[in-house]
């Protein structure tokens, strides 16, 4: 049984730019490469953690206006940056952690995704970087 209700309304910050009001979906996955550590004598496969392999996927409304989606992302393609998502508006706390990827790489940016009569959206994926969770208010 669910013990609490969570309405997803996260804060999304890309390279210090607040894109919350352009974003409709965010998925941050913390992942480690799984290294096979099975040896003689084992009766099942064993794994150990390898390198972190984190990923943040954002769905954003595409806007070419000044200081909006395209302006924020166009100079970031092929570079690393810091991205931050948070379940709700600050302050940071144990129940509202600021989830940060430092040094995440943006490999590609769909510069146009247009369909007649629809709002244009794009999916961008930041890969890699070091994960941290900030639980203390600044």
């Amino acid at each position, binding site marked *: 049984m669910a013990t609490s209700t969570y309405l997803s309304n996260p804060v999304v910050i890309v390279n210090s730019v607040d894109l919350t009001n352009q974003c409709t979906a965010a998925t941050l996955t913390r992942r480690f490469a799984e290294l096979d550590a099975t040896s003689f004598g084992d009766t099942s496969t064993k794994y150990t953690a390898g390198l972190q392999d984190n990923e943040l996927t954002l769905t954003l409304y595409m806007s070419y206006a000044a200081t909006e989606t395209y302006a924020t992302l166009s100079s970031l393609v092929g570079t690393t940056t*810091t991205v931050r998502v948070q379940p709700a508006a600050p302050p940071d706390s144990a129940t509202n952690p600021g989830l940060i990827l*430092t040094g995440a790489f943006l490999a590609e940016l769909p510069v146009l995704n247009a369909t007649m009569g629809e709002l244009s959206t794009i999916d961008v994926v930041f890969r890699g970087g070091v994960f941290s969770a900030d639980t203390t208010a600044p």
Partner: protein
Amino acid sequence: MYKIVSPRVGTPGEEFVPIGGVNLDALLAAGFIVKIEKPKTAKTKGDNITEDKESE
């Protein structure tokens, strides 16, 4: 030293203090922030003494 221009980054006019890993070139290129010269500090007495010694 950087100054905030866009409200998406913070309060316009305030100093922008970059956190680790932020791509400053991208922020400058898109006009979210601008680079400003650090205000010059007044010379202290110690500075003058040093200059005098160097000129001797």
